[in-house]
């Protein structure tokens, strides 16, 4: 190589780098592809099982506790947990869809694909998906909080602390999620500018 690098030299250096000679036989690809499908199915089942367990766990209390208010609280908690798991699963499924529906990827220019990925993540942190998740998760703690104030009992302090902590956590999640959504939106705006024309 001469003493100086031209832009052609840089390309040459890049293209002539050592290769690890990666190879996959068609049989291997078929097996791995089937494995990928079954792995996703298994993961979804595990997610569903965990969600189902949480819903059942809180639902049990609906029938155990004597107080009607607490029953409603536990029912709403179970509903909130189930809804959260549903959204998480939906998000995971959409994420894996990229590899599963590989056929669509070839027809999609990278900027569109990247934009869709960022859009999906943004929507998880803002808009109807985020607010509905927040409301669903807050309903149960709100009922318990209200009950603790309205009906002084021996364990009133415990209920107050637990439900207030949960509500504060949910409140704290609002600015964090919105900030993250803004970050994704800024990246989407950058991509839109790249598609429109010269800078």
């Amino acid at each position, binding site marked *: 190589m001469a003493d100086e690098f031209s832009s052609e030299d840089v390309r040459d*250096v890049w293209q002539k780098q050592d290769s690890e*000679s990666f190879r*996959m036989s*068609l049989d291997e*690809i078929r097996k791995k592809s089937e494995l990928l499908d079954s792995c996703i199915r298994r993961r979804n089942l595990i997610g569903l099982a965990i969600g189902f367990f949480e819903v059942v766990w809180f639902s049990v209390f609906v029938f155990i506790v004597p107080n009607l208010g607490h029953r409603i609280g536990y029912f709403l908690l179970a509903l909130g947990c189930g809804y959260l798991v549903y959204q998480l699963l939906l998000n995971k499924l959409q994420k894996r869809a990229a590899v599963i529906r590989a056929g669509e990827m070839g027809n999609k220019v*990278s900027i569109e694909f990247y934009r869709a990925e960022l859009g999906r993540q943004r929507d998880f942190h803002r808009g109807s998906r985020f607010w509905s998740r927040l409301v669903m998760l807050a309903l149960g703690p709100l009922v318990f909080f209200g009950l603790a104030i309205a009906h002084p009992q021996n364990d009133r302090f415990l209920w107050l602390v637990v439900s207030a902590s949960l509500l504060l956590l949910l409140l704290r999640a609002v600015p964090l999620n919105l900030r993250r959504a803004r970050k994704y939106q800024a990246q989407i705006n950058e991509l839109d500018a790249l598609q429109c024309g010269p800078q």
Partner: protein
Amino acid sequence: MAVITSNKDGLYQETAHTYGAALERLAHAYERDQDIRRDLLQDIHIALWRSFDGFDGRCSLRTWVYRVAHNVATSHVIRQYRTNSRSFVGLEELENMPDNREARPTSDRYEALGQIQALIERLKPLDRQVMLSYLEGMDAASIGEISGISPGNVATKIHRIKSFLVRHLHEGGRHGR
């Protein structure tokens, strides 16, 4: 268009034969860790094989292959970004970063390759894609067709890449004389 075979397996075999080395370089640019890189490369090959069900010849095989490969790699980068909170920079910001101003120019091929790879790893996915495509010898029109970036923006980015790379490596050559 250089599509010889029409079936899924045939298209995959042709792709592996023609673009195998380029796909390795692509994976190398998206992932430094050898084991994870191998997984990424596997994912790319599996996605390509699966993708040929939907290949209808509306674009060239090369465009198709690079779109699928870059999209799989981009998904990988996004996942890594979420896991490690790594931050990437654009080509515009790269030149103003202090550690790049202090980067040691070189005239050695291996050292140059190391510098190029280190540089690519810091780039945002689309800038990374433009740089990789440029290094693979593609012109602005092909890069635009794969990435979806407007021709004007591709040209601007290529100009930045060229001047940045050559300035760093070229100066090293001068010092090395």
